[in-house]
Structure formats: C-alpha cells, structure tokens
C-alpha cells in the first residue's frame, strides 16, 4: 500500500488553474492560513494580549478602578523583601515536588496492579478515574468535611483504632495542612498518572519479558531493565504535565485552607489572587503571578520540545 500511495500523492495534486479565485483559495498555504486565522486571532486576543498586558501591569502601581503609573521593577523589589513571598515560593516547591513524587510512585503502583488479568477490569478502571473526572472544587469540599476539626470521619476512624481523641488537626496545624493539600492533590491526580502509565505498560511487547525471563532476570530486574526504560518517555511527559499544573494550582488550596493557617499553605496562585482580587493591588498581584513565569516557562518549553520530538 505504501509503495503504491507514493505516486498517487503526486497525481492527487491537480494542475493549478492560474490566478482563478478558487484556485488561489485551494493553495495549501492560503487555505491553511485562512482556516487558522480565526482561532489564532482568538488566542492572540485572549492569551497573547493578556500575557503581555500582565507583564505591563506588573510594572505599574495599578489598583482596582484607578489608573496605574509606571513604577519600573518596584513591585518585584517589594516581592523580594516580602517574607510571605518567600514562604509562598518554598510552599509551592514543596507542594509540587512532594505531590508529583507521590503521584509518580503511586501511579506506577496503580498501573502495575491494574496490568494483571482479572474480570471487571474496565469497570475498575472507570471507577478509579472518578477522582480525576469530578470537579476539583466539589471533591475538595468533601475532603474538607472529612477533615473537619470537630466531626472529621478520618479522625473518628483513627480514634477507633486507638489514636487519642480528638485526633490530629489536619487543617489547623501548619505542617499537617501542607500534608493534607499534598495528599488530596495526589488523590485527585494519581488516577491520571496510573491510567496513562497503564496504557504505556500495555504497549510493552510480552516477548521482551519472555526473553528477559529466559536470560534469568528476576521480577525486579524485569521491571528495572525492561519495563522502566520503555516507560521512561511516558513517565517524563506525565511528570512534566503534573509539575506544571501542580505548580500553578489554585482551586484545591483556595477551597481547603485559603492559604492558611498563617500562610502555611499559601501558593503563588492563591497569594496572587489575595493581593489582586482581595486587596485590589492588581500590579503587585501580577508581579507575584509572573514570578511563576521563569520556572513555568522553562517547563513549558521543555515539554513542548519533547512532545514535538516524540
């Protein structure tokens, strides 16, 4: 088929009628750019322009409903001297690294567990993806209730197995609050990891395992030297995805702790929101949001280049 289709492609290109309007419209470049113009204009207007405008805002002392003045880098200097800003930076990194590692390890475990033969596998897979499907805000409200200071079901179960009442203050203690948002982010994102890796596992040819077994490889060695290298590209892509969206997470923290207690769980996105929408300091808020850009930009470029390559 592939041998025959080559000459056909050549034939498929009809001789262009010179300068006729329909002929002009049918040229590949003209057709393509005309077709792409509306979506590209849309994205330029509502992504490109706001991105540039956000950078301009970060250089102004702009407050809500007031004209702003150019202040140079003063907002960024204020960020630099703001202890909360550095707290937020550390929180964001801790949150991203911990949640991503947990999702990676747990997701691999889920994929390996699911990569066995059993009945109702498709049903199980569908159920396991539910945390990823359901709107984050709604499932986070359920977690908030499960970790409620007075009526936490988690604590009641813990007390049932011997923890002394009233049990840990999941959202009131700074370290536990960070632990809680990491766990809930993992709960939500792990199925995405697991099911994607499962799809990767299913593409590993069984002959490779058979060959490895004949060569005397143990279960661990088969995993380490056959499975893992073949999964590496998928793990890398999913991880970059997860890092980007965890780094810029907003909803979960806004709903569960609102950055508290005492900024212990405040992230870049929630802090930028508080400054801009809460305190009305659009310029300062924009500078905090833009502080994410170097790291995010690097990750986005890396992921884009990698996806293009593969």
């Amino acid at each position, binding site marked *: 088929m592939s041998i025959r289709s080559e000459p056909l492609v050549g034939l498929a290109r009809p001789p262009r009628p010179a300068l006729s309007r329909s002929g002009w419209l049918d040229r590949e470049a003209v057709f393509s750019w005309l077709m792409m113009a509306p979506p590209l204009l849309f994205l330029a207007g509502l992504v490109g322009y706001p991105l540039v405008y956000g950078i301009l805002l970060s250089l102004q002392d702009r407050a809500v409903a007031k004209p702003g003045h150019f202040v140079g880098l003063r907002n960024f200097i204020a960020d630099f001297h703001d202890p909360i800003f550095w707290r937020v930076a550390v929180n964001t990194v801790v949150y991203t690294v911990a949640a991503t590692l947990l999702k990676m390890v747990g997701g691999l475990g889920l994929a390996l567990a699911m990569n066995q033969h059993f009945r109702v596998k*498709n049903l199980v897979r569908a159920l396991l993806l539910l945390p990823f499907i359901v709107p984050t805000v709604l499932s986070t*409200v359920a977690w908030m209730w499960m970790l409620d200071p007075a009526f936490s079901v988690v604590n009641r179960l813990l007390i049932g197995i011997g923890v002394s009442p009233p049990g840990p203050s999941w959202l009131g203690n700074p370290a536990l609050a960070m632990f809680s948002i990491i766990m809930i982010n993992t709960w939500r994102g792990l199925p995405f990891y697991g099911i994607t890796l499962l799809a990767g596992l299913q593409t590993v040819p069984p002959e490779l395992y058979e060959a490895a077994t004949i060569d005397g490889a143990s279960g661990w060695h088969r995993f380490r030297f056959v499975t893992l290298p073949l999964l590496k590209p998928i793990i890398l892509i999913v991880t970059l995805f997860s890092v980007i969206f965890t780094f810029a997470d907003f909803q979960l923290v806004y709903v569960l702790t609102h950055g508290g207690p005492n900024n212990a769980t405040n992230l870049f996105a929630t802090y930028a929101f508080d400054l801009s929408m809460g305190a009305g300091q659009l310029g300062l808020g924009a500078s905090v949001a833009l502080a994410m850009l170097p790291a995010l930009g690097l990750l986005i470029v890396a992921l884009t280049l990698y996806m293009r390559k593969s």
Partner: protein
Amino acid sequence: MVTGYGRLEQTVRVWLPVGFFLVVALFPFYWMTITSIKPDSELYNRHLMPLLVHNPTLKHYIDLLTQTHFLLWTWNTMLVAIVSTGISLVLGVMLAYPLARMRFAGAGLIAMTVAAIYLVPQPLLFIPLADVINRLDLGNTLTAVILTYPTMLVPFCAWLLLGYFKTVPKELEEAARIDGASRLQTMRRIFLPLCTPGFISAGIFAFTLSQNEFLYALIFLTRSSVRTVPVGVIAELIRGDVFYWGQLMAGALLGSIPVAIIYSFFVEHYVAGLTSGSVKG
C-alpha cells in the same frame, strides 16, 4: 497455577492492591453520599457509628433546591460547558486540520505555539484577563466565561485532534480532490465525518474541563443568578464560619453527576484521549 491455592494467590495479588486503590479513590464519594442523606441530628452526633445512615432523609436536597439557586447554577454550568465546548471544537478543528494535512511554511512553529499555550496555566492570566473583562463590561455575564474557557480548551482540542487526524488515512481525501472537490469541501464532506471518535474524545475532555473550571468563574461571576455550580457551592453554602454540610455534600454530589454520567457513557473514548495525549504525543 490451576490449583485452588494458585487461584487464591492470584486473587490476592490482584485484589489487595486494586482494592486498596479503589477504597481510597471512592471513599470520599461514599462519604459525600451518606452525609447528604443524614439528618443533622446524626451528622453532628459523635456517639453514632459514622459510616452508616440510621434515618435517611432528603431534607438537605429539598433545602438545596428550594433555598438556593442550585438549579439555576446547574443550568448555567451546563450552558457554559456546552457552548464553550462547541466553540472550542470548531476552532480546534480549524487549527488542527491544516496542521495535520497541509504543508506550509510556519506549520511547525504554529503547532508548537498551540501546545505551549495549552500548557499556560490560568493563574498566569487571570489578573490581566479580569481587567480585560471589566473593560469589555462583561462582568457578571455568562459571556465572560464562555469567552475565556476556550482559551484553555481550543489549544487542548486542537492538540488532541491533531494527533487523531494524523491517524486517519488520506486516500479518501485524495480521491475527492481528484474528483474536483475543493479543499474546504474535502475537509467538511469527506474528512470530518470520519473523525467522530476524535470529536467525542476532545468534546468530553473539554466538557469536563469546563465543568471543573473555578478561577475565572470565581472572579467574573459574583452575582448569584449567573454563578456556576462550583462557585455557587463555595460562595453561598459556606456562610462565614457556618457550614451547611448536608447541603454542601448534596450539592457536591449533584454537581458531580452530570460529568459522571457523560463520562460513564464515553469512558473508552475518554481513556483513549487520555492516553493518546502522552502515548502517541
């Protein structure tokens, strides 16, 4: 392996880990459900066994539907999700088709730009966008979110469809071209009807993403009558320090059901879309 012992071992090896993941994944939904049908006297009683319902009641649902704008929020959410998904599919096709099928200078650059825009998270854009929406005088209108959701959905749909389009054989289109059809006719009459599975995948994803969106809706929609479910639930069922847990859980459950139903119908498409993103790149 055929012995009873081997089969038992097999069962344990499958269901011990899978069961663990299932319990962790599903417990919050179980807890949502039983909280929503417990009377307050049970909800706030620490001496009762919490995992069971003793006297189920629909009171929280009735309160939710009669005392709040929940039905209106649901309508708003569906309207916004359907319209922005539709817009995003159309614009996504307009980007993906030329990128998948045509050869022209700059195609690679455009493809990369689209992928990069998909990865730009909302927190990077919401402050300037809020100002833009204000200047367009679109605050507190559903148009504000219908216009902004596609900023994340269009690149996403384009990217997913691009991958799908490349798997569709070219022969039919080539035949249509030989028969004298224009490029536009070929695309609309011959090519797009072949791509229904791709549209379903992209559509379900876009739909769940719109249902999930919170930040833009929180900023742009501050009047109760235009709110979407996530914002309505957070902003109006949590009043100060008072939590109406029964109503909150009823709202969370009802708000999750549309997505869950649509997802259950198209779960295979969803998984295919999920994996095509990273497997086929």
